């Protein structure tokens, strides 16, 4: 099976690192070098902070997506969860702001809860369908996403909801804490929490087990239905959080936020080595995966690469990343 030829070319050390940590770090390094050469503006503190903030949204959604993928599923409705959260929370805030004009924090808090609640429903629907009716996750989340998307448009009649409390946008959209953008801080917290959840709690282990072999999990006294439910709800809630951050960023409730983020997040997970068959995936890699995609987009913009070219390059990169990951897998198999 394995091709010693393909691998022997690497000098030993690089190869060891490659086998241990995977292809993404190398790609990141490569991207950094290339774009630094292409554009002097790229490797500036300002731009890197910039990239950080931009990547927050994809990284967060990818975390949720990872959870569902590991559980052996699929979530195409994250984009809709974002949109729904955006319009619901925005509408709620605008409405509440009218009632308690001077309790801004209360307004923001309640609004956020409204958004979370809406997204939770999306997650519950997905979970019930997948866990209790054995509906294929693909079709279930696709259906729910069309359903909820329609609802979101209903709510707003397609018109963005404006007039949010300034504090909301100022803090969660563009605010900084100790010089670090608030969204980045939020993301870091989520990442840490997710890491602990997946690798240090029984629930996390159960998610892996269910994704790995659901029948075996069932015979190991794992409540597979509950575990699946949880995965979809958490995924929806993380998407919802992303939706709030985005709403703050765009200062209005938009029914068409997150159009393509479902596919993007799955892509981020897969190039990070999450298996679409379930059971396999690591938080830290997924974070890298999401970051990598955004970084490349940013670099290409700074390098003023024509956007058609960008599509071509991004497509090629995705494929390359996964091909290298396969080579790596074979190296491991061939025991080097």
């Amino acid at each position, binding site marked *: 099976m394995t091709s010693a030829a393909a691998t022997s070319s690497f000098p030993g050390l690089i190869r060891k690192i490659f086998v241990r940590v995977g292809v993404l770090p190398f790609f990141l390094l490569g991207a950094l070098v290339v774009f630094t050469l292409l554009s002097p503006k790229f490797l500036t503190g300002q731009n890197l902070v910039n990239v950080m903030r931009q990547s927050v949204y994809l990284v967060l959604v990818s975390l949720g997506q990872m959870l569902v993928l590991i559980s052996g599923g699929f979530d195409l409705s994250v984009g809709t969860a974002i949109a729904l959260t955006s319009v619901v929370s925005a509408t709620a805030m605008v409405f509440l702001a009218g009632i308690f004009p001077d309790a801004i924090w209360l307004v923001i808090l309640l609004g956020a809860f409204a958004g979370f609640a809406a997204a939770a429903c999306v997650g519950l629907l997905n979970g019930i369908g997948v866990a209790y009716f054995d509906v294929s996750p693909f079709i279930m989340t696709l259906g729910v996403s069309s359903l909820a998307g329609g609802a979101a448009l209903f709510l707003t009649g397609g018109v963005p909801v*404006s007039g949010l409390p300034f504090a909301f946008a100022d803090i969660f959209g563009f605010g900084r804490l100790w010089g670090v953008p608030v969204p980045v801080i939020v993301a870091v917290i989520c990442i840490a929490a997710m890491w602990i959840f997946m690798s240090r709690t029984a629930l996390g282990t159960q998610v892996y087990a269910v994704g790995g072999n659901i029948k075996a999990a069932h015979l190991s006294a794992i409540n597979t239905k509950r575990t699946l439910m949880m995965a979809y709800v958490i995924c929806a809630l993380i998407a919802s959080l992303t939706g709030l951050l985005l709403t703050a960023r765009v200062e209005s409730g938009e029914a068409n936020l997150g159009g393509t983020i479902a596919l993007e997040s799955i892509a981020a997970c897969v190039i990070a080595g999450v298996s679409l068959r379930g059971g396999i995936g690591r938080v830290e890699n997924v974070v890298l995966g999401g970051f990598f995609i955004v970084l490349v987009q940013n670099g290409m*913009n700074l390098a003023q690469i024509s956007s058609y070219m960008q599509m071509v390059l991004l497509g090629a990169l995705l494929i390359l990343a996964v091909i290298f990951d396969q080579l790596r897998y074979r190296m491991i198999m061939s025991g080097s």
Partner: protein
Amino acid sequence: AQDAWFPYPAEEVTPAFSTDGSVAEVTYEPLAAAEKPWNICVSFPHMKDAYWLGVDYGVVAEAERLGVNLNVVEAGGYTELNTQISQIEDCVASGADAVIVGAISYDGLNNVIGEVAGQGIPVIDVINGVSSSEIAAKSLVSFHTMGFETGKYLAEKHPAGSDPVTVGWFPGPAGAGWVEAANTGFLAAVEGSAVTVLEPRYGDTGKEAQLKLVEDVLQANPEIKYIAGTAVTAEAAQGVIRERGLKGEVDILAFYMTPGVYTGIQRGFITGAPADSMVIQGRIAVDQAVRVLEGKEYFKHVGPKIFVVDQDNVKDVARENILPPEGFSPVFSVKK
């Protein structure tokens, strides 16, 4: 001759940036050349149809004429608000002196525009319009007006009292700002005339999507006398009308201009469409940007005069002002 687009009949809105300001006829005279090769960045919602290609042609041609550097980015579609924000940030990061924005969302960009403007970088609002007050200038005609002009054309043909006609109305993708604007404009214009408008049929501005909608509406309401909607709708409708031998019985109107619509009018398949001279809007935007940068006085809120193109006047209009020239393919950057 290609560059001698000016003087051009335009309309200035005063007070600037007001939605219901008074409109004054003016003639627009651009600068002869820029003092230095400024870096101007242009952000479009997408570059997938002839309309934005026209705007692209406008900004590019004007940049070349004035001798400034130009970089064009496109978000990839009307659902990509977040991408557009990122791209604008990237523009600034890559050292743009001024930013021209064809906004995806009316409110959604205020925040980022505020940030950019805060750094002393003028932001010009082209084509779509934004609600932010921190922009330096607007070069646009509201889609509300476009829809209105289209409706007016019908209303004048069928004033109250004349025998009633039914119109199938296809405003475009649900939720997009320009669509809602055109929708309200159109409905307002036909208000009180002998024209009855069917339930708006929203749909992606892909040809097969519009095609299906048109077919089904013709099916449901054979009594239809007009099909009005996006340029794509009009282009797609021609075939159906011909197939069903309805030519002459059902007429087609678009509420903006594309090459397809233009030829349709020439060939007599399409009755007419208002021309917003998107090329000129693009040109003016660039000129405004340069003027702002060089501290010259300029029209804060201006747009080319709208006129309806139909069989009668189609031969006398200068095509290069309202459409991209034949065989022009998108240019993403102009370097001096």
